[in-house]
Structure formats: structure tokens, C-alpha cells
């Protein structure tokens, strides 16, 4: 960056006209909660599936005063999260953080942070398939008509078939929700554990699907209801054991295979939440005892 003659990107990579187009789509998305606004998704310097929709939304929203956090399946340390943070640090000189509380914009792939979000934050979701009815009805013209007519019977039939086959609603992620009593929406492939957090959230939630060229949104303090039946009410996942590192019983846990003898551990998927709890002194069954910590063994 020291060589001013070197070609450089526009702030936050996208050109200004693209940002305006995305910004107009975002405003309409906020005005029609849960409705998927078509937008002219651009090619990004990464393949589809790496969060091109979320990145375009973030690029259109973020400014020099923002602090960005990126999580991938709850973790700040995975490839997708690290590379997107680096991308915005490079093309916008954006300050990045792993602390949920410090971030003003949080881009996420498939989790909502365990820490409650505030009015001063924006949560940007990366979405692969924005259309909740797509696997039930492949034609876009049909699903569009179904949304127009508020014809969501097919989705209830799908959930009912779950019950008749498995005895319960077996959908565990991308669990359909109804936003403000009108549009049925795909919350992106977040675990259904996170669905209740979307309801009446203080933060603005924006969704970007790059390949499918759709943007949608949930304004703050908006009713988000997970679809269910009176006799089969919506419920979230529960685990028999607490997090092996921080001992919490109320966060979403990942199963980690430890060896080929059936050894396994359950650990928080939200890496910042887990690290924060450990720093506060919480310990789990597999935590290292600080008193016993020895020098790192060379590989």
C-alpha cells in the first residue's frame, strides 16, 4: 500500500454504483421483512459458497468507523472467517475483532453468537439457498407465486411428513420461520437452536445470497416464529453433557472426535463465547489444569 501508483481497490472492494444497488435492495428488504429482494449479485474474488452474498452485503454496509467480526460455524478461527476478515482489512482497512461485544458488524456463516446482540450491531448472514420452498417446489415462478399468495401449506406438509416418518420434526437446521406473521423465510443453515434468538432481536439482521442473487432482512424487534404444530411444538437441541472446555450447559455444542476408539468431546461452537468463559475461570471436564501446564512438546 506504500506505493501510491499501484492500482488499488475502491473502499470495501465494490464500486460505488454496485453499493448503491445493494443498498437500495437492503432498504426494500428491511421494509418488507422476510421477503427476498432480487439483486444484481457481482462476481467476487472468491467462489460461490464462500459467502459472496454476505460479503457483498457487508461491503455495502461497512464504513471506516466499523469493527468487523466474522464467524464460520460459530468459530472465529476457521478458514472462511479468517479469510473474510483479512479481505476487509485489506480492501477497506477495516478494524477486525473476535469479540462479539466490540463488533459493530458481524458476518456469520450458520450461527448466531451466544452473546446477546445489541441495537448498535448488524448481523449479516451468508445464505446458500434463500428460498425455503425450493426443495419442495423447484420453479422460481411457482415459489414466487406461493409467497405472493401466502400459500405455505406445502411447508407444513413437509414438517408433518417429518413427524409421520420420524415421530418428530426432524429438521434441525435451516428450520423455516415466519417473519412478522407474513413471509416464510429460510434463516440460512443455522441450527434450529439459534431460531429463538432471531425473535425480537435488538440488532438488525441482513441476509445475502450471492449465487442465488437475493437479499432479505429482519428489522430489529420483529416477531420471528418457527413453524410447528400445536401437538408438536418447536423445540431446540439439548445435550446430555456440558461443554468440555468451559462447562456451559446453555450454548450450542459441536461434537469433536478425539481418536479412533470412539473417544469424543462436546465443545462450544461459539469460540469467543467459550474462550471468554474460560478466561472468567469456568472449567470443563477436559480443560487443562493450569497448575499442570507444561512446556509445549515439540512435534
Amino acid at each position, binding site marked *: 500500500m506504500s506505493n501510491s501508483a499501484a492500482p488499488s481497490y*475502491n*473502499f470495501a472492494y465494490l464500486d*460505488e*454504483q454496485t*453499493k*448503491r*444497488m445493494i*443498498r*437500495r*435492495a*437492503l*432498504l*426494500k*428488504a*428491511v*421494509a*418488507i*421483512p422476510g*421477503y427476498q*429482494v*432480487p439483486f444484481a449479485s457481482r462476481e467476487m474474488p472468491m467462489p460461490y459458497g464462500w459467502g459472496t452474498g454476505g460479503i457483498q452485503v457487508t461491503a*455495502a*454496509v*461497512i*464504513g*471506516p468507523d466499523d469493527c468487523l467480526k466474522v464467524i464460520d460455524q460459530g468459530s472465529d478461527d476457521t478458514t472462511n472467517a479468517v479469510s473474510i476478515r483479512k479481505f476487509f482489512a485489506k480492501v477497506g482497512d477495516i478494524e477486525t475483532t473476535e469479540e462479539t461485544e466490540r463488533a459493530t458488524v458481524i458476518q456469520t456463516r450458520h450461527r448466531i453468537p451466544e452473546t446477546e446482540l445489541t*441495537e448498535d450491531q448488524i448481523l449479516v448472514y451468508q445464505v446458500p439457498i434463500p428460498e425455503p420452498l425450493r426443495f419442495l417446489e423447484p420453479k422460481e415462478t411457482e415459489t*414466487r*407465486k406461493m*409467497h*405472493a*399468495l401466502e400459500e405455505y401449506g406445502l411447508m407444513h406438509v413437509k414438517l408433518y411428513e417429518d413427524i409421520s416418518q420420524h415421530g418428530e420434526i426432524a429438521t434441525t437446521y435451516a428450520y423455516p420461520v415466519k417473519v*412478522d406473521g*407474513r*413471509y416464510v423465510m429460510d434463516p440460512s443453515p443455522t441450527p434450529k437452536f439459534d431460531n429463538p434468538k432471531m425473535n425480537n432481536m435488538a440488532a*438488525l439482521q441482513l441476509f445475502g445470497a450471492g449465487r442465488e442473487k437475493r437479499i432479505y432482512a*429482519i*428489522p*430489529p*424487534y*420483529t*416477531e420471528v416464529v418457527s413453524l410447528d404444530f400445536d401437538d408438536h411444538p418447536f423445540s431446540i437441541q439439548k445435550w446430555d453433557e456440558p461443554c468440555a472446555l468451559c462447562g456451559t450447559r446453555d450454548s450450542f455444542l459441536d461434537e469433536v472426535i478425539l481418536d479412533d476408539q470412539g473417544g469424543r468431546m462436546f465443545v462450544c461452537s461459539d469460540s469467543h463465547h467459550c474462550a471468554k468463559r474460560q478466561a472468567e475461570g469456568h472449567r470443563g471436564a477436559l480443560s487443562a489444569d493450569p497448575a499442570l501446564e507444561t512446556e509445549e512438546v515439540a512435534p
Partner: protein
Amino acid sequence: MNYSTSPSALGFDNPVFDATATFRTVLEAMSRPATIQSIRHVPDAPSGIGPATAAVLLALADMDTPVWLAPEVASDTLRTYLHFHAGCPVTDAPEAAVFALLGRESDLGVIDKLAIGSAEYPDRSATVIIDCESLSSDPGQNFTGPGIKDTASFDIPGFPPAIWYLVDRNQALFPLGLDWIFTAGSQLAALPRTSKRGS
């Protein structure tokens, strides 16, 4: 069309960062309806419209968005300004407008001619920008709906009360309808079509 090619007023100091900041203010206003927001970096505005109105148009309008101007505000100065800084077409057909700009004395009859979207594409609707004298958060009109925690109070002092009739009628069209941005000076407030006026 015989426009002067150089505008009488400069636009944003920094077109990239000021447009971003203005958009964030509009996004905040649209996400938290009926709250009054201030635009931090307003552009130099031509006479006849307020700085917040100029900021919103420069931040959001471009060659893809026909803008309709009410006769009271449609001066040559403003046309030149928009052509130069935003590059947006100014249309005479309200039904083609993506943004419609009205002044405090404009005839509200045009509201009925603006695009409200279709059942399959409710997003293809106009955004109405009304340049007002002042905005007030004193108890006046009360709103509920998405983005509003309990209720939000908002009023436009001195504006014809007929506007509330239009806002109500527009809200009843949901998910179709217009979205409203009210500006005054460097402030603005928004009412998306979801905001319901209570007693």
C-alpha cells in the same frame, strides 16, 4: 433540455465515505421507524431542498433510478445538481419513479400514481422523500410494527394532516406499498410500509 453543465452546489465532500455514512443513517431510520436520525456529513445542497434530502438522493440515486420531482422543488438548479452529482434521470412520469421528492407545499395527489410493487415483486415500489419544515418526536402520531420495540412517537409539525391518511392507506396495502422518508434540515425519519399508526 437546456441545463447548465456545472452545478451551483458541490456534492459530498467525500463521495465514498459520506454516501456510506448517509446510507447507514437511512438504514437505521428504516430499521427503527419513526426515530429521528441526523446525517453527519451532509453535502452542499442546492437551494430549494434541505441538506438531508440532498444527502439521501446523492447516496442512493443513480442512472438506474428515475427520480420524480414535485413541481415546487423541480428547479433547474436541482435538475442540474442531480444530473451532475447523481447521474439519475429525472422523470415526468410518477409511475416510473424509484424516488419521488415532494416539498412541504406539494400536492399529495401524486402519491396515488407512484409504483407500489406487485404481489410477486413488492420491492418494485417507490420511496417517497418529503422535505419538511421540521420533525418532532413529541407525542403526536404513535407507531407500532417491525423495528419498533413498543411504540414510537413522531410528528411533522405544520404538515397537512392528510399525510397520515395516506400513510394509513399505504400501510393497509402491505406487503405492497410505498416507503416514506421525511427530511428536515440535516435530519430524517422513515416509515416503511410496515409501520402502523395507532391512536
